[in-house]
């Protein structure tokens, strides 16, 4: 083997290492930027009881798009998106879109105070003490929102406060 070939192999090897390093530093180390393992899969069914005592299950909303939001009263970003989701619910609720908020790792009192403070009126329920629903959805932090289409398939996961544009874009395609 001549020197040029060695040199070329060395360069290719180094480029490969750099690519792996970038992957490790910027992609694999930020879970929020890793697509959910559940994208394009059927949303896992769950049951819950809302804060006002209503029993709900995901299956009862078959055929309707669902915005499933995980939140907590101690979460700062949840305060940012509270008005956004409520306003979207007011605009789209009557058109068939379903908005569900699941409170995780929170006390009932704190959750209720949060609901009252931000005037949330859509379906709101606490997760159980072991976070069954949040674990089934692979929730990494709050707020985290899953967009579930009319066929019950998860189309997107948003970590952090959801924007109005994201909701509008999703529902525009679902409520035609």
């Amino acid at each position: 083997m001549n020197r040029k070939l060695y040199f070329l192999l060395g360069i290719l090897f180094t480029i490969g290492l750099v690519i792996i390093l970038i992957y490790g530093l910027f992609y694999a180390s930020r879970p929020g930027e890793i697509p959910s393992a559940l994208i394009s899969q059927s949303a896992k069914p769950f049951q819950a009881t809302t804060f006002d005592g209503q029993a709900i299950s995901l299956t009862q909303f078959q055929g309707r798009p669902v915005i499933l939001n995980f939140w907590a009263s101690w979460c700062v970003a949840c305060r940012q998106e509270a008005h956004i989701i409520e306003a979207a619910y007011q605009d789209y609720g009557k058109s068939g879109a379903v908005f569900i908020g699941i409170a995780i790792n929170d006390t009932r009192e704190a959750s209720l105070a949060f609901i009252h403070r931000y005037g949330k009126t859509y379906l709101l329920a606490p997760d159980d003490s072991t976070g069954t629903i949040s674990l089934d959805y692979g929730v990494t932090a709050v707020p985290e929102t899953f967009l579930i289409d009319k066929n019950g398939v998860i189309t997107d996961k948003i970590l952090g406060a959801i924007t109005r544009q994201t909701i509008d874009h999703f529902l525009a395609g679902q409520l035609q």
Partner: protein
Amino acid sequence: MNIKSLYFFLIGIACFGSVSSGVDLDNRVREIAHQLRCPTCQAMSVKESDAGISLNMKQRIRELLEEGKSEEEILRFFVDRYGEWILRSPKKEGFSLLLWTMPGLIIVITVLLLFQYLRKKSRMTTIPDTRPLSEDEQRQIEKDLKRL
């Protein structure tokens, strides 16, 4: 041994057994939690983290163990929901296999290249120069010898 002693002995065994199995369960939870990445804290394992989600995961591990699930089934449970990144050690298959083999490969290739380079260099320095002396060189040598 009388009946009373036997009775207390058996109770002792039962108590010790249950404590021991409780300790075993805790240890198994810790072992599995150590293999999972905290979804919130990233750099920590579920075992080390006190984040709410990690506490939930530890509780779920315990429940799954009590249901009789194996370690592999429990890890698969979390991988199905979070993806492969939830494992602190990449699986030894597919693209991840490259991550396991790359450091060793780099070392082996480096050592081989270094060995080849040193061998080549040593071969060059040990080859004797068998050219006959030129006339100028011969004259210079005689001149130096006379001076001595």
